[in-house]
C-alpha cells in the first residue's frame, strides 16, 4: 500500500533519532534523589561544583602567619570584621597572590560608617559620619587605624 510510505519515512527518522540519543546521552544522566521533576541531571556535575576553587580562606587561615595583626584586630571594635573583607580574598596566598592589595578607599569605611538612622536596623547603632561634611576627599586611614578602631592615630 503506497499510502503508508510517508509513515515508514517518519518512523525511520524517529528510530534514527532514538538510536542517536542512546549513543550520545551521557551515561551518568538520570533520575536521582529528588525524582524526575527535580532530580533529572548529569551526576558528574555535582563533582564539578564540589571542585570549584575556594577563594576566601577566613581569619583562621590568616592568623597562622599574621598572629599579631589578628590579635590587635580581635581586641578592637572591629573584631567582627573578617581580614579578607578589606584585604581581599587570600586564595593561596602567599604563593598566589604574593601580596594582597589593601583597599584604602574611603568608600570601604563608608559601607558601615555613613550615618543612616534606620530605626529597624542595627546600622543606626554604629558610630558614623556624614561623608559630605567629615573631611571629604581624604582617606580615613590617614587618621584612623582600622586594626585599632577605637582610637585615632
Amino acid at each position, binding site marked *: 500500500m*503506497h*499510502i503508508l510510505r*510517508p*509513515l515508514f519515512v517518519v518512523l525511520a527518522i524517529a528510530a534514527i533519532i532514538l538510536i542517536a540519543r542512546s549513543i*550520545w546521552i551521557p551515561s551518568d544522566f538520570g533520575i536521582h534523589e529528588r525524582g524526575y521533576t527535580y532530580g*533529572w541531571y548529569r551526576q558528574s556535575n555535582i563533582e564539578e561544583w564540589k571542585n570549584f576553587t575556594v577563594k576566601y580562606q577566613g581569619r583562621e587561615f590568616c592568623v597562622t602567619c599574621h598572629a599579631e595583626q589578628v590579635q590587635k584586630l580581635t581586641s578592637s571594635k572591629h573584631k567582627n570584621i573578617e581580614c579578607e573583607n578589606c584585604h581581599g580574598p587570600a586564595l593561596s596566598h602567599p604563593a598566589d597572590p604574593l601580596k594582597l592589595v589593601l583597599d584604602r578607599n574611603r568608600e570601604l569605611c563608608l559601607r558601615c560608617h555613613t550615618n543612616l538612622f534606620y530605626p529597624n536596623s542595627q546600622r543606626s547603632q554604629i558610630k558614623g559620619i556624614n561623608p559630605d561634611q567629615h573631611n571629604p576627599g581624604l582617606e580615613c586611614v590617614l587618621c584612623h587605624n582600622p586594626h585599632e578602631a577605637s582610637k585615632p592615630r
Partner: protein
Amino acid sequence: MVLESLWTVKEFFVYPNEYIYWAIQIVMYPFMTGLVAGAFVLSSLYHLFGIKPLKEIARFALVFSFALLMVAPLPLLLHLAQPQRSLYVGLTPHFTSAIAAFGVVLFVYGSVVAAELWFLFRKHLVEVSIELKSKTNKSLAEKIKYMVHTILTLGAMDVSDASLKLDAKAIKVLAGVGVPIACFLHGYAGFIFGSVKANALWMTPLMPVIFIMSAIVSGVALCMLIYIIIMGMKKFIVSRKNDSAALSTLKEINSEEISTVQTSVKYLIFFMIFSISLELLDLVFRGYTAVKSWDILRNVIYGTDFINIFLLQYLMGNLVPFILLLLPGLKIRRLIPALLLVLFGVFMMRWNVVIGGQSFSLTFSGYMDYQLPIIPHGLETFKEGLGGALLIAVLPFILFWILNKIFPVLQTKGPD
C-alpha cells in the same frame, strides 16, 4: 555589563538580576508558529470540510504552512544563549518543562503537513520523474531535478485513478488529524507563557486559547494577503496581452478571486470576534477580581503600555480592520490595508504579551522598558534586534519560493 542591559531600562525598584531576557525573537516565535497553525487551519477548511471557494487558497496555504513551519524553530535557536546545545532538548528531555516537548510536537506536526503535501503533489512528482527519466542527455539542473523528484516519490509510481482516490482519502484524514495538532502546536506556545506562575501577566489558563484564536486570525490574513498579491500578478500578466481572450480570462480570475476572498473574510471575521472576546474577557476578569498583582498590571496596561495595547493592538490592529472588513461592498483595494493591519495587530498582541509581561518587576513596584536594538553592534545585537526579526520574517517567503519549485502550487490547479 550583561548583554540584556543593552535593551533594558529600569525604573523604580527592580531586582538586580531582572532584565528583559525574552526579547524580540521570543515575540517572533509565537508569531511564526501562529502563522503556521493559522495557514494550516485555513487549508483544512477546504480539505476537511470541502468549502469549495477556498480550494485554491487552501492548496497554497498548505505549502506556505510548511515553509513557515521550517522557520518556526529558528527564532528559538537565535534566542538561545547556547544554540549549539539545542539538540539536548531531544537528548535529555525534561517533560515537566513546557518547552521540552517542543521538538516532539514540531516533528509530529511537520510529519503530518509533509505527508499531506506528498499526497497532494504525488501525481505531479511522478509525472516529472517519468518525463525526465525518458529524456536523454539531461543537463545538470535536470539531473538534480530528476533525482529530487524521484526520491520524493518514495517509489510510489502508481498514479491510477484508484490510487489517486486513496491519496484524496489520505489527505482528508491528515487534514482532520492536523487541525488538532496545529492547534496543539500553538496552544502549546500559549501554555509556555500561561504556565509561568511567577509572571502575573502571563499566568492565565486562557492563554493557550487566546493564542490559538489569534493564530488562526493571523494565518488566514497572511494567506489571503499573499493570495491577493499572486492573483494581482496573474491579472497583470494577462492584462498586458490586451486581446479579447485575455479580457475573458481576466474576468474569470476576478470572479474566482472575489468568491475566494469573500468566503475567507467570513472566517477571518468569525475568528477575530472570538479572539478579541477572549482577550477582553481576560482583561475584564483581571480588573474585576483585582488580586495583588492588579495594581502594577493596571499601571502597565493603562499606563506605560497604553499606546502599544490600546492604540496599536486594539485600535489599529483590531477595530480599524474590523470596520474595513465589515463595510458593505468589499473591495480588494480596501482589503489589503485591512489584512496588513490584522497581521500588525496580532504581532502587537504577541509583543504586548512577551515584552509587556516583562515590563514590570517581580517586586510589583518597578518597571522595565524595552528598547529594540535597531543598529546591530555585533552578532548578539543582530540576533536579538531588528535585523534578526526581519530575517525570520523574510525566510518563509524564500522557502516558499524554493518549495514552489517542487510543489508548483502557483502554476497548477488542483483536481476538483
